[in-house]
């Protein structure tokens, strides 16, 4: 190897390491998206593969032979590579395909093919025909999120501050049911809430049916197939995702802070309001994101615990994709769901974001 050529090359690499590293990542992921989303076909495909391999290997070779300075500067890009490429292939490429399909048309109702045609009417259809399902998704997810906070916060509080030596056992009890599959647990609830099931029987015996009907928890003597059942299922299934982050943020709070607040003339209530609550808000924030985002896209609870009147957008998307074979409209619905969740989360973060506490 010609060392006289290599020395200035090393210096250049050192100076331009950021440009080289970032460039390599962008080129490599573009290649992957191109392959994954089917931008190129036929003879170009091997070329793209070649470019991809060359860039990935090139970056590694540069790290290997570029000398200590280049190695230090390029190593972060080398470490980022697997994650970025994974995202490119399994997130960016599918999203691209999704968006593309959402603007395509099918030649006929029964066709499985579709052609790209800037068909914005898919979005009109999504909004016009599935407004109710979008509404259900967001309302149910929001109510379930609020309920998980109301149930999870006190529970986490008791475990964190009063758990003593039973702390880990109590946390274990919260988590153990979730060793069972999500689907199985939800189906179990449909048995528990069934019309001839134990819960309804007890409610009849106690005479609470009338009250529950008034509260819209029951409908026509049924617990199952109501919005309450779907929300209940969501609440149950996502409770640990709320409880655990809140527990972690409460656990970190030094109980001496409460003592200090007491010492400074604050009653326990004021100490909680001014000290414990603000310091645990990051946990609540994380919990709401972990709960609301998957709950809004969920279709399992509505399918097993709900009725056709409580269908959530997740069910409709599944239906359009797998039963109606209407990929363009299903894609449009998925895209709308993604964008609306993202914007809600963004607004929420801006309003309640606790960046300086994290």
């Amino acid at each position: 190897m010609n060392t006289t050529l290599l020395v200035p090359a090393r210096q250049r690499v050192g100076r331009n390491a950021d440009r080289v590293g970032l460039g390599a990542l962008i080129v490599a992921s573009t290649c992957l998206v191109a392959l994954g989303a089917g931008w190129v076909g036929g003879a170009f495909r091997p070329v793209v593969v070649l470019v991809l391999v060359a860039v990935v290997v090139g970056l590694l070779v540069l790290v290997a032979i570029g000398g200590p300075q280049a190695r230090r500067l390029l190593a972060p890009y080398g470490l980022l590579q697997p994650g970025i490429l994974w995202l490119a292939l399994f997130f960016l490429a599918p999203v691209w395909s999704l968006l593309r399909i959402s603007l395509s048309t099918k030649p006929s109702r029964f066709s499985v093919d579709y052609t790209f045609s800037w068909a914005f009417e898919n979005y009109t259809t999504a909004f016009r025909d599935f407004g109710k399902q979008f509404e259900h998704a967001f309302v149910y997810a929001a109510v379930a999120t609020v309920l998980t906070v109301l149930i999870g916060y006190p529970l986490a509080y008791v475990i964190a501050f009063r758990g003593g030596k039973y702390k880990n056992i109590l946390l274990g009890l919260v988590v153990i049911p979730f060793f069972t599959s999500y689907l199985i647990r939800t189906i179990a609830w449909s048995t528990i809430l069934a019309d001839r099931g134990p819960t309804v029987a007890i409610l009849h015996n106690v005479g609470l049916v009338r009250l529950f009907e008034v509260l819209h928890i029951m409908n026509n003597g049924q617990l199952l197939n109501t919005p309450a059942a779907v929300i209940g299922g969501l609440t149950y299934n996502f409770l640990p995702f709320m409880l655990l982050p809140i527990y972690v943020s409460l656990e970190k709070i030094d109980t001496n802070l409460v003592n200090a607040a007491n010492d400074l003339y604050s009653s326990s209530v004021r100490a909680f309001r001014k000290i414990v609550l603000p310091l645990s808000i990051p946990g609540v924030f994380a919990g709401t994101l972990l709960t609301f985002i998957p709950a809004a896209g969920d279709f399992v609870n509505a399918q097993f615990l709900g009725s056709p009147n409580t269908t959530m957008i997740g069910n409709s998307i599944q239906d359009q994709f797998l039963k109606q074979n209407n990929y363009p409209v299903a894609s449009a619905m998925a895209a709308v769901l993604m964008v609306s969740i993202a914007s809600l989360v963004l607004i929420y973060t801006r309003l309640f974001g606790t960046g300086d506490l994290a």
Partner: protein
Amino acid sequence: MRKDVIELDHLSKCYGDYVAVNDVNFAIASGEFFAMLGPSGCGKTTTLKMIAGFEQPTSGRVVLDGVDVSAVPPYKRNVNTVFQQYVLFPHMSVFDNVAFGPRSRKTKESDVRRSVMEMLEVVRLVDFAPRKPSQLSGGQQQRVALARALVNYPRALLLDEPLAALDLKLREAMQIELKRIQREVGISFVFVTHDQGEALTMSDRIAVMSQGVVEQIGTPSEIYRSPATLFVAGFIGSANLLPGVVTSTDGVDLVVKLEIGSTVKVAKGDNDNFVVGSKVSVMLRPERIRPTSSIPANGEGIEGILTDLVFQGPTARLILRLANGTELICITDAWRDTPVQPGDRTSVTWERDCGYVLAGWPDRAGATTTNVDQIEAAL
């Protein structure tokens, strides 16, 4: 007339069988800087917590300004605490931390602003008001904790080892700062520490505690010069404690036959309880005795071999090995030439009133049964 702010009346605290605080009685005067000093586990922090209200006494009373507050919760007691780790509220600015107490008491916001800024002035942190505690150094956090407590003008400020988390230099600076602040605000400070130097430097009075019991209460010089018990003598400063038995007394001096075999003459002091045959310990502060090469005859004085001579800057430290193997420490002026060299037979002399007699024998100074038998046989 002296006015007591805090009065502890037969205060005890038990955790199951373990007695953490055992029948503690003392009163703290208005404007006094009072230290509770003792090794860890001696009950000083528990006592402080009972004054603050974080612990309930098992028996006895805590009296604040003449009112029994034993059952009053902390937030209704007019005392404030500076915690060992400061425990500033991490999500609040310095200003809001200091304003916490006044706001809890529903003070008008304009008054809050004025008194907080005043107090930040006292602790010299006005420019730091908008900062978060995490942006401050240890010493600054310490001063915020002080301001947060003092802004309420409590009847007494309770400080739980407040300087323990600081490095040596800062700690020394904060000792002076604490004294200045205390003079400026005129509030009683009750200060818990295990550092005797700290207690001696700052306090008006010290209560020395050990195993839940108050061993002695007095001014720093009283405690250093005339310790009431062997524990106090050993805990405050360093002391050579030599066990022996009183063989004769002439009203002013005691003649003590020491365990090591020789006899010494020591001023009797104020204590009249010693009679011939009393088991006593002679306390010799290392800086109050001088080495000499002239060995007194007829078994008088203390004699040993100089094993070590350590130069320490302003002072030199001499270690003598006595006849029975115990060590005697002597601290001398390093600028003066020592008349003896390591390996020499050396004795120590002292002015008549530099020795001090305490009742009892130290249990750790080698006063074994055999030794005791020997002493008694020698009489």
